């Protein structure tokens, strides 16, 4: 026989004011299976909880119903109390006499009657509760970070410094990402590489970090704490152990006229190359598409000159399989090319460039050695027009969002130009100046006031070439919309920050969701900004939305601390309120017929296929299995299962059925 204890709380006058606790306790005492029923002013108080604990011990209770406030309020409290008295916490239920009864009804007999019913319902439920034990999922304490930009680097370092192994995967030959391309950074104008490269080196040397550059994620399976990643390490065509990065191969390579990705196409590079001098690792790759040997079968010059004989033309892509417990996605962004803007010259005027181009022009390590020269003829421009919001905030162009960083870097660009070319004139066309951020507004004011950058509020309708100069036709909306026409030598478009072309493919590999702009979606826009709705996968940086460096870094550290939190125990403990597919003795094994119609109803991919086999490995049947690591306990599958083969612990069919019958 069940031995249920009922504990009715007065909650001072809150319940006792309209409900008669004594009557409720007395009525409850008569319910079949109830062996103990009392009422007390404050059940949640120390003495109140002791009443429960004592009763559990003395009356050997098998279940407890606390008739008090909302379970959303005190269920944890009373379950803890039960646990302390040696009763499985999941054998304790609450009847909500306060929020759902005393606070919402008059002091009439019907109210007390309702209270009695509510208690009866819970008594019937708790009789059918089963002891539940928190679910333990083993955790592989190794994280994988996708993307070696500043966000990825920060996340990797933070996790590594927390003492956990990290695998950093970068698709380019070097880590560093876009930040490595930047000249100075707003609002402090400190040199980007100066602050970034030390971090890159730290990554390379960190004992906890394994770096896979020129590599991409092939596939990801498994679940939180237990992922299996397959990484494709693309053939570098050199032996990294032998290569010293001396660079002779690059000097000797006959093919030198390949637009350099790092310089946004403004500079050239050989077919065997390291993207930039401070690259990490400082080992070249052979760009097979442009290598004479790979194309024509002759050359091998690099091989001839390599002092350490490190060239490996026959090297193959390598697939690396690794178990990881968590994944941080930090794959970053790209910018719209100038060719996206027919009205700005189809990207055919060489002197209409993107912000990224300008960064390279302004960078001391850039193709012009930091001198602002226009691409077409190398002249130093006397007039430069900067256009903020090129594509951004323009639904007609399919980009309705704000790229967020453009206002700031445009101000920076104008400033840098004025510093480098004091006699030059800088104009900025803008819609609004969005300079929210520490020292940001001040920075923009400085550009306007100290560096005399001319800010024109209005959009540019057209840019076209006339006699070697660029005619910029726009409008000044502050001069009651008067058309303005400027002749410029160089135009810099702050083109929209967009997700990578293959963002969707990645999202599908990771089974995470993404928005209409192909940015990855966080689990909750406010309260879970670095988690994704697939447990164990976190997001950092501009692959989630446009961000500047400080934000990206902050989010990366956030993601890293989430990972560290996940890795803080050997096992992941989760609420046992999860769905379970029944198992039965042979020959039934399970009443599940394996139709898997429940599969698509699960938002968490928690439903797996389990093959039941004989000892000699012969397949008997395939049935569903709920992965407790992934299941969040919504019970949608339970309501779908025709044969009632799935049930939800804590809200079993039996329990809820009993509640209904108790009405």
């Amino acid at each position, binding site marked *: 026989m069940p031995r249920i204890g009922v504990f009715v709380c007065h909650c001072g006058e809150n319940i006792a004011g309209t409900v008669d606790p004594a009557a409720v306790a007395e009525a409850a005492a008569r319910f079949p299976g109830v062996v103990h029923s009392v009422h007390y002013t404050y059940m949640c108080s120390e003495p109140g909880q002791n009443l429960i604990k004592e009763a559990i011990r003395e009356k050997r209770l098998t279940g407890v119903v606390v008739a008090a406030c909302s379970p959303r309020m005190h269920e944890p409290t009373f379950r803890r109390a039960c646990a302390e008295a040696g009763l499985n916490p999941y054998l304790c239920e609450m009847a909500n006499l306060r929020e759902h009864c005393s606070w919402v009804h008059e002091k009439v007999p019907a109210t007390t009657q309702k209270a009695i019913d509510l208690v009866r319902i819970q008594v019937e439920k708790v009789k059918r509760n089963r002891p539940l034990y928190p679910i333990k999922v083993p955790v592989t304490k190794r994280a994988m970070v996708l993307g070696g930009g500043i966000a990825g680097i920060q996340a990797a370092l933070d996790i590594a410094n927390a003492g956990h192994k990290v695998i950093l995967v970068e698709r380019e030959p070097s880590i560093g990402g876009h930040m490595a391309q930047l000249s100075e950074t707003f609002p402090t104008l400190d040199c980007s590489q100066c602050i970034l490269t030390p971090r890159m080196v730290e990554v390379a040397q960190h004992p906890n970090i394994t770096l896979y550059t020129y590599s991409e994620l092939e596939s990801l399976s498994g679940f939180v704490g237990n992922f299996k990643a397959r990484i494709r390490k693309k053939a570098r065509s050199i032996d990294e152990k032998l290569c010293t990065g001396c660079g002779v191969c690059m000097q000797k390579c006959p093919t030198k006229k390949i637009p350099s990705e790092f310089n946004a196409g403004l500079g050239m590079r050989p077919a065997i190359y390291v993207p930039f001098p401070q690259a990490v690792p400082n080992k070249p790759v052979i760009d097979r598409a442009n290598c004479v040997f790979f194309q024509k079968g002759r050359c091998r010059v690099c091989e001839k000159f390599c002092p350490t004989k490190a060239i490996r033309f026959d090297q193959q892509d390598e697939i690396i399989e690794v178990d990881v417990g968590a994944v941080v996605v930090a794959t970053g962004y790209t910018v719209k090319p100038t060719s996206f803007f027919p009205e700005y010259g189809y990207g055919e005027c060489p002197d209409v460039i993107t912000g990224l181009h300008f960064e390279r022009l302004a960078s001391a390590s850039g193709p012009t050695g930091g001198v602002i020269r226009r691409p077409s003829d190398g002249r130093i421009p006397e007039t430069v027009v900067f256009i903020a919001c090129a594509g951004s905030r323009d639904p007609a162009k399919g980009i309705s969002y704000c790229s967020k960083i453009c206002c700031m870097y445009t101000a920076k660009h104008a400033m840098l130009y004025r510093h480098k070319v004091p006699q030059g004139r800088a104009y900025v066309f803008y819609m609004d100046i969005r300079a929210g951020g520490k020292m940001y507004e001040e920075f923009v004011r400085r550009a306007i006031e100290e560096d005399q950058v001319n800010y024109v509020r209005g959009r540019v309708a057209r840019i076209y070439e006339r006699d070697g100069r660029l005619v910029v036709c726009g409008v000044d909306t502050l001069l009651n919309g008067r058309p303005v026409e400027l002749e410029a030598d160089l135009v810099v478009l702050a083109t929209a920050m967009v997700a990578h072309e293959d963002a969707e493919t990645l999202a599908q590999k990771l089974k995470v969701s993404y928005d209409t702009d192909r940015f990855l979606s966080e689990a909750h826009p406010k309260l879970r900004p670095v988690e994704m709705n697939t447990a164990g996968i976190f997001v950092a940086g501009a692959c989630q939305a446009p961000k500047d460096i400080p934000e990206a870094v902050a989010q990366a550290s956030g993601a890293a601390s989430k990972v560290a939190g996940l890795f803080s125990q050997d096992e992941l403990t989760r609420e046992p309120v999860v769905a379970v597919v029944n198992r039965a003795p042979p020959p039934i094994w399970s009443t599940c017929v394996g139709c898997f119609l429940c599969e*698509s109803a699960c938002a968490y991919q928690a439903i797996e296929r389990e093959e039941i086999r004989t000892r000699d490995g012969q397949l008997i049947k395939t049935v569903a299995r709920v992965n407790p690591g992934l299941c969040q306990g919504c019970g949608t599958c339970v309501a779908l299962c025709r044969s009632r083969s799935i049930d939800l612990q804590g809200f079993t069919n039996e329990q809820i059925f009993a509640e209904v019958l108790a009405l």
Partner: protein
Amino acid sequence: MQALQEQARKLLEDQTVKVVIGYAPGSDEERARALFVRTPQQAEQLIFDQRCRQNLATYLLKPEVKALGRPAVVAGVATLRTILQYAVENQLQDQAVVALAVDGNGQVTTLSTFSQIEEYLATCPRGLTPEQEQELARIEQMSREERWAFWSQQLSRCLKCYACRAACPLCYCARCITEVNQPQWIPVAADPFGNLEWNVVRAMHLAGRCVDCGSCREACPEDIPIDLLNRLLARETLTHFGAAPGYSLRREYALAVFRPDDKEDFIR
């Protein structure tokens, strides 16, 4: 009929299949019964005419039938749909069964893969026939009270014999909900509540899955028009969710997927 017997004999002779499940004359003029042809000689007993309404796909999942070896099954549209639905619901492997599709004018087509069946069905007419629509409309036109009276009267005859379940190709659960007793969702006795519950559950469990073979109606000893319930939901799931069970191999169960803009005019 000739063509069918011919094809059946061939399949058995060249060992393509071990058994051909088809129809033979039944106990009276009205009925046909299932025939399990296992030797080429027996093939000549096969018939196919308007008597052959039972959905033979039902046998495909029975262990004792599986034990006989790879089967061929004489199939009308409903049976073909059942096979595809089995495929979608993981109950049959591709090429595990050969379908002998017989159309209105006795034409026999041999379909040995799911995709062949899919192609074959692509050309078949879908949705309810005008007659079926009318039958539904007749009831829908009644007042609520009349409908309740009508069905109470109908269901009062239900014996809970579960013949409908036995005849239904998609009632293949290892354990039917009627056999679940913890909790006892459906009372054992044939009382009004239990009968209502059973028939609602049956219809709900077939919503978005029913292939409209009508076997349940055929099987009902009390001739309760239970197929109407399935047909109603077939129509609703089609109109609201575009569900066409058994016509394609796409794993899309209307009640396990959703559109954010599904209708909700009834929700406050």
